[in-house]
């Protein structure tokens, strides 16, 4: 992000819109149930049982949510490793969604953990248990969330540097005069904040690349480990999903979901905020996806053939149907994206991105919940309160995004972007594959 601050702008507009209040309602309902959970126990709000100890909080908020939050990761690979700097304008909004996705996944884990007060044990080497995939996931996710904050810091610093402190002044005028330091003190304090932000920003810019690379390494580790988590369930997870390739499949899966989510998010935010669509960039991005999904589908199918599970996959029973649905969504979306004409239509871009996200997300759901069978007599379907907690978390994510793009320079600068677009008319001479090195 070094020295590219003019690429991004702050969105002008009111913060308290109608959608703000709708989302806020969802958040409040969700947090009410979270309160109930902390007072009365997990059983009071959820349908989880000893047979299905992980419900949608893990399957959606953590396993699928962090994949959807992989936009920042996928974009960082594309820009910094594969050297396609014209995608740089898209990175901040991708980072912001990643930041929200991961922080809220962490938050959901704290709701889900039964004995959350013991989680400081992750920082005590004596308790470390390196055989556990979850140990690896936990440390990596915590580290990555911190890295994401650092990666987003330039936008915050820029805003501090350029703020005139008007809101602060308004607040201080509203408060009782006794509570507020006098005008001169306030001004000098603001000046100090501005100066230190200005001092820090160029220095951070210099070392930022090391954090960005860390932000590529950590998701590579924990996204694959999210797959490893279910390796242990050899006797419970349906053979259509249980394979030694789970880590690899989860890794590729999160990268293509990452690109698809960047496309979807750009189109949605362009429409919602009535901005021009970053068209060239999105068409270029969409070209990468089918190549990734082809690799993923080949591993998936090759593995099923190797383990002799093809007949099971085509049996059209409960498990087979979910497998086929997941397969058709991903394969169908990729087929469409192979066509250049489709890639140039925003509508089809949106549809295919949605298909890929749904298919890829369903794969994770299948592994964590739908394909998971602990034995006879166990059933799971999330309760209303459980769903509302997840809905509240998602609402908080969207709400935060809506507000922060109006506070910090996050979205691509259309003027800058237009210039870029004209400079390169033909969408991108991308080499086909964008898998990270060193798997």
């Amino acid at each position: 992000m070094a020295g590219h601050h003019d690429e991004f702008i702050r969105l002008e507009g009111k913060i308290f819109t109608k959608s703000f209040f709708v989302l806020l309602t969802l958040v409040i309902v969700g947090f009410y149930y979270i309160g109930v959970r902390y007072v009365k126990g997990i059983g009071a709000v959820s349908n989880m049982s000893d047979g299905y100890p992980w419900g949608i909080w893990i399957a959606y908020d953590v396993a699928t949510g962090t994949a959807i939050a992989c936009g920042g990761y996928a974009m960082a690979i594309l820009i910094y490793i594969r050297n396609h700097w014209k995608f740089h304008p898209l990175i901040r909004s991708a980072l912001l969604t990643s930041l929200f996705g991961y922080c809220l996944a962490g938050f959901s884990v704290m709701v889900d953990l039964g004995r959350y007060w013991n989680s400081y044990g992750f920082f005590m080497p004596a308790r470390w248990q390196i055989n556990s995939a979850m140990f690896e996931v936990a440390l990596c996710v915590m580290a990555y969330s911190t890295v994401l904050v650092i990666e987003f810091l330039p936008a915050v610093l820029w805003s501090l540097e350029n703020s005139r402190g008007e809101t602060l002044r308004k607040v201080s005028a509203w408060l009782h005069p006794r509570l507020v330091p006098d005008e001169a003190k306030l001004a000098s304090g603001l000046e100090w904040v501005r100066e230190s932000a200005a001092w820090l920003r160029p220095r951070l810019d210099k070392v930022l690349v090391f954090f960005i690379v860390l932000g590529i390494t950590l998701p590579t580790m924990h996204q694959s480990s999210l797959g490893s988590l279910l390796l242990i369930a050899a006797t419970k997870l349906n053979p259509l999903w249980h394979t030694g390739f789970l880590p690899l499949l989860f890794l590729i899966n999160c990268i293509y979901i990452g690109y698809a989510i960047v496309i979807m998010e750009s189109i949605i935010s362009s429409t919602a905020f009535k901005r021009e669509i970053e068209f060239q960039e999105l068409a270029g991005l969409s070209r990468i996806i089918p190549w990734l999904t082809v690799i993923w589908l080949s591993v998936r199918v090759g593995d099923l053939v190797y383990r002799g599970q093809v007949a099971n996959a085509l049996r059209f029973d409960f498990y087979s149907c979910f497998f086929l649905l997941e397969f058709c969504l991903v394969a169908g979306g990729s087929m469409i994206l192979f066509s250049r004409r489709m890639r140039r239509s925003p509508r089809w871009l949106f549809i295919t991105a949605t298909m890929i996200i749904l298919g890829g997300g369903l794969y994770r759901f299948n592994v964590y919940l739908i394909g998971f069978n602990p034995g006879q007599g166990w059933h799971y379907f999330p309760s209303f309160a459980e769903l509302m907690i997840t809905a509240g978390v998602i609402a908080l994510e969207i709400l935060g995004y809506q507000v922060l793009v109006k506070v910090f320079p996050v979205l691509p600068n259309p003027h800058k972007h237009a210039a870029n677009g004209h400079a390169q008319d033909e969408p991108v001479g991308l080499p086909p594959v964008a898998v990270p090195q060193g798997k």
Partner: protein
Amino acid sequence: MKSQSRREFFKLLGLGGATLLASSVPAMGSEKGGVNNEALGMLYDATMCVGCKACMASCKRVNGDYGSLSYERAPFDPDGLWDAPQDLSGSTRTLIKLHKETDSRWSYVKYSCMHCQKPSCVSVCPVSAMTKDKVTGVVDYNKDTCIGCRYCQVGCSFNIPKFQWEKTLPQIVKCDLCRNTNLREKGITACAEVCPVGAISFGKRKELLAIAHARLQDNPGRYIHHVYGEHELGGTNHLYLSALSFEKLGLPNLPDNAPAEFSEKIQHTIYKGFVAPVALYSTLCFIALKNQKGQEKNGHKEEGE
């Protein structure tokens, strides 16, 4: 001189080879013949059990305070005269159930932790709350480190660890072979101590296996010719004999290899010595720095033009 140095070389080679062998032999031993038959365990003989549930009552009495167990009321029993658990739960570590095939053909079955030789719950616990004692083989749970993630429940093929869903401050509940209560005080588990018909034998795994095989030999028609737990998931310290099929009694049909061996092999291959992540990070750093430099140069050129 030359030949001598060559001899030296061979000597070194031999020495190295020997140390390699020496270091790999015990490692192989622990992996292949890794079953610890000196470990403590129990043998439950379903054909001898009369279903009196004395074991259940004794377990809850002895472990109630330590294990945070409570009595479970039946809906028809508001006064709480009976402890009436339906299944293993956050209040019940062991349970007797009746399986009725026909009116004349039925069997009791007792559930509790199998104390696997290679337990999945120990392998997956991120904070070492589940441990396996090296000598006694007891799989124990420590609530003071447990974070309540319930990964042990996901991992266990027997669905043994139970979570206290209804409690504000919950914990995992499972049999620890009375390690912290009866075993320490009396040297035997509470359930085996009180069984009036000797359906529960307590002892070292090798003794239990000998008893089980002797019974199979002496009464060929009485049992299914299989000691459940001898090989299942790499062997368990809790063993079963039965006249009805084990699957019908709720003991799943399982492969002989432990899932934890499989998952740990993959995880260790990826993270061996933490080499791969460090290599990945340094490679990526190198590439990114190079790309950034190139980009800055290009950017300045563009601006200059």
